[in-house]
């Protein structure tokens, strides 16, 4: 999961500091993916707020309406784009919802939900 360069740096970190170092690297990775489309973390959180009304807080509630937290970003993005483009024949309401967001916003939302950590 890390590049050669990162591994080299990691090897130079004393063992007792490694946990914190991993956390820093991972933390940075999460922030940068949420911000990939130029949206701040808080901006994406506000956009994602609406999703919770049917998918539960942070999209974690599984039921008739599926949980969306921690599903792969590519899968979520492809599904959202299919809704937006009327390419999902089983759509009931998400086609109407997805059309309210730009493709960049949908990508940012997909990354946000994909990268939620376990709580």
């Amino acid at each position: 999961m890390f590049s050669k360069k990162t591994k080299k740096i990691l090897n130079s970190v004393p063992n007792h500091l490694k946990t914190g170092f991993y956390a820093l690297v991972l933390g940075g990775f999460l922030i940068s993916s949420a911000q990939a489309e130029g949206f701040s973390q808080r901006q994406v959180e506000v956009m994602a707020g609406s999703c919770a009304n049917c998918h539960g807080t942070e999209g974690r509630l599984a039921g008739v309406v599926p949980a969306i937290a921690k599903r792969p970003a590519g899968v979520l993005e492809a599904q959202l784009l299919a809704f937006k483009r009327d390419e999902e024949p089983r759509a009931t309401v998400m086609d109407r919802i997805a059309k309210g967001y730009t493709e960049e916003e949908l990508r940012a939302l997909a990354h946000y939900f994909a990268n939620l950590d376990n709580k």
Partner: protein
Amino acid sequence: MSEENKTLSRRSLLKGVGAASLLPILSACGATAVSKGTAGHVVVVGGGFGGATAAKYIKRGNPAIAVTLIEPKKTFYTCPFSNLVLAGERSLDSIGHNYQELKEVYGVEVVHAYAEDVDPVAHTVRLSTGSTLKYDRLVLSPGIDIRWDALEGYDQAAAELAPHAWQAGEQTRLLRRQLEAMDDGDTFILSAPANPFRCPPGPYERASLIAHYFSQHKPRSKVLILDSKDNFSKQGLFTSAWQEVYGDRIEWVGLSGDGKVVRVDAQKREVETEFGTRHKAGVLNVVPPQKAGKIAERAGVTNSSGWVPVNPRTFEAELAADIYVVGDATVAAPMPKSGFAANAQGKVAAAAIVASLEGTSTVDPHWANTCYSLINPDYGISVAGVYRLENNEIVSPQGSGGLSASDADGWVRRAEAEYAVGWYNAISQDTWGTRL
């Protein structure tokens, strides 16, 4: 939250400075200042969809902010799904929610009392317990109050005979008991108000689900809707579903067909319309004209319409600084007065409050809404909307939102009925942390 400490710290702050520098300190203690050493104190009035959500999301945004939620009821019954209770398809308990998770998981202080008055200048809320709370930011989510003076013959005493059941709980129980006791062959009359009012498709879902109950338990009874308007939410979908599912059991009379009720005789369960037609009901349900909950009036944030104008970016009241108002009480068109919209507005206000207490800039607001209505427990229809800010106005992006397809297959109606339940479970979890 230690309001005493806060007052003390302000006093000692004032004591420690000379008279010459008093003014700037006073203004620093005014509208936007937060007591030194704290992240701020937010008081939230109203524990429904808007208020409970705001309280939770302020804590999620910054746990160091002290949040006190004022809500008289220990169990909050939702208007959504109360029509299923009326139809005997659900228990009232199943739509009741408590405040345990807000307290235990999110650290919200919950006070079961009425908020009786707000002093927007002193930044205080007076409670029915006699105590006064000081706030840095106030959220009002008061829902609706009935306009008891707007419909002749319909006052609080009349509502005990001809319930509105537009605030769930005892009124829901009362209307359900009346429906059960009604003779087969009698008519259920629902008087629907002019716009705007809480839950635009609500009266028509209620008519549908009571027709469902009649079809099983009182096969000779009918439903008559007397309406003060000529158009209503999801009208085409409702009308064709009524035809399809209930035949002529449901009759709707609009404004131009003399549907506007102008006088109520609750004792006789009789109503009179604009042009003098009298209708006698077996059970009479009056959904009366409404306005913002009373505490909004007390805080001075309502306008002549009786509702609360807000800055749509933050949902801060136009008429008072540091008071944010969310939910049915607000003027937020094209967003409807729905629980979903109240929850969405609660999150936008929460983000704006966290940003203002932290001194950071507010992000762009986004909202959505989906209102499911049940024709019967297996037949659902919906209207959806996505909203954002353009030129400081709430708009729905072109091509987004709208109604369930009018020509949808049966599986779509069944799926939407299931998704309605999924929605109810999810929004309850998101708002109160309670689930079924």
